[in-house]
């Protein structure tokens, strides 16, 4: 499914992973997180060597495409979950959960339940949960795909600010070129199955980014580059339909 992936990602960098459906972006993310094992090859996470066991060495956060909250837990308890699973007491975990919730600006909905929140809010809770263990690596798999454009852009902005504050390594899988360009320092474009990296581009964009950036000519140029790589290696026109 994946072929010849040989990547080095610097600590603290923000990397976007792009590619057509089914190319294996999500699979790659699962390999990195340790949820699945590749048939050959290995994933090495610094500073600890060889973190194949999920959750044991390098602290990881994962944000899924679905918020994946436990419906029977309140917002605060959902965010506290990872800490509880790693052995912390319930009270302490709940205390610690307040911080990330404040960071995503959900300080006033602690005792609400997921079915009482909007899609965007649920996603923010999911992000807060991913941050609660203070991960050095944050993985996101098309987290905002199900949200409307406006919410999506707002969350993009929030995410970038979070990253600037905390400086963990972020690997962000997305379909949306503009989003990738807005968020990342480096963009990786994958081809159709078997997925190979066909473009590894450092984005020439300013450090401080806001929503106006999207109309900036530099931005448009960068996006065009990505689009070119994508369409050459994964577009609909020359593709036989994936089985």
């Amino acid at each position, binding site marked *: 499914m994946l072929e010849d992936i040989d990547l080095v990602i610097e600590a603290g960098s923000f990397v976007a992973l792009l590619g057509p459906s089914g190319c294996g972006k999500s699979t790659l993310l699962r390999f990195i*997180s*340790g*949820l699945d094992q590749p048939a050959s090859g290995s994933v090495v996470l610094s500073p600890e060597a060889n973190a194949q*066991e*999920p*959750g*044991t060495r390098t602290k*990881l956060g*994962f944000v*899924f495409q*679905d918020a*994946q909250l*436990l*419906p*029977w837990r309140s917002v605060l308890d959902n965010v506290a*979950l*990872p800490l*509880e*699973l*790693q052995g912390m007491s319930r009270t302490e975990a709940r205390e610690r959960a307040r911080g990330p919730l404040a960071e995503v600006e959900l300080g006033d909905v602690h005792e609400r*339940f997921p*079915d009482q929140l909007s899609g965007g809010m649920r996603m923010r809770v999911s992000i807060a949960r991913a941050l609660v*263990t203070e991960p050095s690596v944050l993985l996101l798999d098309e987290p905002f795909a199900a949200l409307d454009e406006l919410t999506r852009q707002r969350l993009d902005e929030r995410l970038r600010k979070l990253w600037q504050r905390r400086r963990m390594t972020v690997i962000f899988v997305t379909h949306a070129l503009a989003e990738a360009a807005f968020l990342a320092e480096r963009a990786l474009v994958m081809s159709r199955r078997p997925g190979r990296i066909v473009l590894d581009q450092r984005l020439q964009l300013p450090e401080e980014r806001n929503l106006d950036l999207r109309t900036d000519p530099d931005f448009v140029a960068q996006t065009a580059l990505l689009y070119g790589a994508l369409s050459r290696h994964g577009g609909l026109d020359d593709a036989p339909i994936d089985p």
Partner: protein
Amino acid sequence: MKHSTLRDFLPSILPPALTFVVVIALWEGVVRAFSVPRFLVPPPSDVLLAAWSERAALFGALLTTAQGAVLGFLLSASVGTTVGLAFSLSRWLERGLYPYALFLQTVPIVAVAPLLVLWFGPGLRAVSVSAFIVSVFPIIANTLAGLRSVDPRLSDLFRLYGAKLGDTVLKLRLPTAIPSMMTGLKVASGLSVIGAIVGEFVAGFSEGSAGLGITVLAAYRQLRTDLLFAAVLLASLLGLLLFALVSSSSTLLLRRLRAPG
């Protein structure tokens, strides 16, 4: 907030109430008009009369059967959920023991009841075991299904953080399984009454406490069909009552725990 008045309930009460009145009237009318022998089909008036004149005995019988049914149900609930959980944790266990659990469902309880009397003792013991046997399987099956219905992505989440098995069971699988378990309990509640009554047919009764099953048996023997109908009616009501109890507890629980469904 608007208070619900009787008028709000009327649309849901009226149709079944009307149907009930019509059925009773027809029943009474047909029996009288065609002079149907009263020992074959007693008119509702006979049944009511019998129920009233034997009300003390019938009430005692109701309580006795209720004891057996409730005891059997509680046994099913505890054993059933435990076994379901055990099965979910060990494929090996499940493969080995599931056929026996299934066997409990299919064994003809009437044939087995004398053995139950022998093994467990007459009266309440045999009756509650009979109720248990008849009602345990739905609980096992539904608990197992519920535990297996965990969203794999949530499983991923737990795995990501290296959750221990105990945490996964307590914090993920059981909460997911609760709606299914409630369904199983609801099904089992009605079945436990049936099991108790069938058990009573055979197992008899302890000193001074005849259950509804014995009342039916004795009434049939003496051709007191009116009394028989009254006892059968009470048995159905008992089953309904138990079902309603379990059902409303389950709804309250699900609402409070905000489990899905």
